[in-house]
């Protein structure tokens, strides 16, 4: 399939018929649970925001205390939804919509099983109070072996497959490779370090932030950029422009994503150079993001001329890219010491995180799902209206959520900076924003519910048609697959 940016191979919808038989299982194993995790994450996030509105909501039950559900929400989004979709993107790139060797099939099944078992254990552990509260490293120890094994099983195979069918100019393969390699490398190193009793002191803090930004930019961010490079040819019929620039952007991304995290540590117990390195890296990441964005929009201007149908994949992709540019810019500007005095530790930073997570990663991942699933399942999406509803609900939900948190964060930051204003009043001035944020959070939940139902419909429909009128359905899909994403 179209995993090249400039190679001669065209993004043709070949062999949907063979693909359907062999790829259906692996993708559904990966993506079905991912959708469930998406719900879990959104429900937990909504609960968290209600708990902030009134801490007595749902009582003082340890399992649902704010300090546990809010990390659990982020963790289930990233590890439950983000990572499996990232793996699916790589799987899609190496199979090119063709067949999957039997061995690969088994690996996918094993991965999906181990990963989800580990993650259920892990998230339950966080809710039960087993976490060390280390942001993205917050999953409890006992879940790590299963998660690590699950990841390595399919990532190892996927890396080998990507390398063996390497396409010279393919930026998609590079970014996917970065994501595939970074997560086990860094996750493994971090987990080992954290369980060494000799690792103490502020290095634990810099380790945490090295991993946080690395996971978001070099791990999942790389998957999402890989998806951008995969999908633009499919949606637009032409690749992202400026592949030379894209290569530079790739290397900048790979390097600076690992250095950017210390920008968060400004004012903390760290030498000046560590903080400055983080701030500068955030700026360079912004430039890299804009470099990809320029290629994206130049391609969009030249490519999207005729479009009959409303193409959900393309809309999600465009929203994702816009969010990336804004989130990367905010990430850089907010880290400047002159600003961070006001905005550090406020919900404005949380707004930036949500824009990156839900706006960039989430929307780009949906874009992949809208393109990939009909091809794998051999049927178009049953209802364009539902797809549109999903897009509108989530794009408005994210925009308002981010906007409200950003505005609230400014109030909070200016208030916190005034030492004469008691903290109670600062939080009281922030509460109206947090209260209203529950509305867009609900919209987001609705959006994900719509997506889940739509997916269920698609799976059921494709399943029944497969049994009843297999031949007809396959022939139909080969035709439909090109037009409908």
């Amino acid at each position: 399939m179209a995993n090249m940016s400039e190679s001669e191979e065209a993004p043709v919808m070949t062999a949907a018929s063979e693909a359907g038989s062999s790829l259906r299982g692996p993708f559904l194993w990966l993506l079905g649970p991912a959708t469930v995790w998406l719900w879990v994450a959104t429900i937990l996030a909504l609960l968290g925001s209600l708990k902030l509105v009134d801490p007595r909501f749902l009582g003082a039950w340890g399992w649902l205390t704010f300090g546990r559900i809010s990390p659990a929400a982020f963790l289930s989004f990233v590890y439950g939804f983000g990572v499996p979709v990232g793996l699916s993107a790589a799987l899609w790139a190496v199979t090119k919509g063709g067949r999957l060797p039997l061995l690969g099939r088994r690996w996918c099944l094993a991965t999906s099983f181990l990963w989800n078992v580990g993650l259920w254990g892990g998230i339950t552990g966080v809710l039960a109070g087993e976490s060390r509260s280390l942001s993205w490293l917050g999953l409890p120890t006992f879940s790590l072996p299963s998660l690590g094994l699950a990841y390595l099983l399919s990532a190892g195979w996927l890396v080998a497959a990507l390398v063996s069918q390497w396409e010279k100019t393919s930026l998609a393969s590079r970014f996917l490779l970065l994501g595939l390699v970074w997560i086990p490398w860094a996750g493994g190193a971090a987990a080992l370090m954290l369980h060494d009793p000799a690792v103490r002191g502020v290095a634990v803090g810099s380790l945490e932030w090295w991993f946080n930004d690395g996971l978001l930019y070099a791990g999942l961010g790389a998957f999402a950029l890989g998806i951008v490079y995969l999908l633009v040819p499919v949606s637009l019929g032409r690749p992202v422009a400026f592949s030379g620039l894209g290569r530079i952007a790739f290397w900048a991304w790979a390097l600076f994503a690992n250095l950017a995290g210390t920008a968060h540590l400004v004012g903390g117990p760290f030498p000046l150079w560590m903080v400055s390195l983080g701030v500068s890296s955030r700026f360079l990441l912004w430039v890299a993001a804009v470099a990809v964005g320029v290629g994206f929009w130049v391609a969009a201007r030249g490519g999207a001329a005729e479009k009959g149908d409303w193409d959900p994949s393309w809309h999600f992709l465009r929203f994702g890219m816009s969010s990336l540019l804004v989130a990367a810019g905010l990430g850089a500007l907010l880290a400047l010491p002159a600003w961070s005095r006001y905005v550090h530790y406020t919900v404005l930073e949380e707004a930036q995180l949500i824009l990156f997570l839900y706006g960039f990663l989430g929307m780009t991942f949906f874009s992949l799902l809208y393109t990939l699933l009909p091809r794998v399942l051999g049927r178009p999406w049953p209802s364009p209206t539902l797809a549109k509803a999903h897009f509108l609900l989530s794009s408005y939900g994210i925009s308002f959520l981010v906007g409200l948190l950003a505005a609230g964060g400014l109030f909070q930051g200016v208030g916190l900076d005034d030492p004469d204003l008691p903290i109670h009043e600062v939080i009281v001035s922030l509460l109206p924003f947090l209260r209203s944020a529950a509305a867009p959070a609900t919209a987001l939940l609705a959006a994900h519910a719509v997506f889940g139902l739509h997916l269920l419909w698609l799976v059921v429909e494709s399943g029944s048609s497969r049994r009843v009128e297999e031949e007809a359905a396959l022939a139909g899909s080969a035709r439909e697959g090109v037009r409908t994403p």
Partner: protein
Amino acid sequence: MNREEPQERVVQGTTSEERLPCLFLVFATVIVLFAVAFFLRYSGGWRWDVYDASGYLAGLPRSSASVAATTAPAGGPAQKPSAASPIEVGQDVYQANCAACHQPTGQGMSGQFPPVAGSDWVNGDPRVLAAMVLGGLQGPVRVAGAEYNGMMPAWKTVLSDAKIAAVLTFLRQAWGNRSSAVEEEQVKSVRAETTSHAAPWKVEEVETLAGKSAGKEAK
């Protein structure tokens, strides 16, 4: 039919070469230069013991309440924030740069870092003191009755003369020390005299400055 269509479009797309928008080049150049300049300016010499930038960052006006909170006995006429008293500046410089080793209380850490509170070096000849801090200090040194043998890095590349004068004044007047203030000019002249001395000082070397300095000053 359906299979051919996208292929054609790809070919079209790749043949028309686009040119990089000018605006992007300007943006990228500006931001990259800014990032590099920012890092060079605030690299703190890549040192593990520099926590705060001197200059712009350290000099951002503090809110009036925070000034009041840290300096109760100011008493004098109200001053512009930038013209804070040397003690105040010195305290900030100390907490940012020296406290990591000599500890926020000036007591040092037994066996590793000598105290600066009640130290004869601190309360002694200001020129020897300035030289030690400018150039760093290594080898055995006796402070407040105990022997230390460590290495203090040089501060001449990190701190300006004014900052060093301020921190030394602070040292000489805090924690029960009662010695004279150190002027920026004194630090400046010591810096000028000792430019040729690259490595950290040994105690024997730096002690010689005390005598020599008087003569030099007379010239």
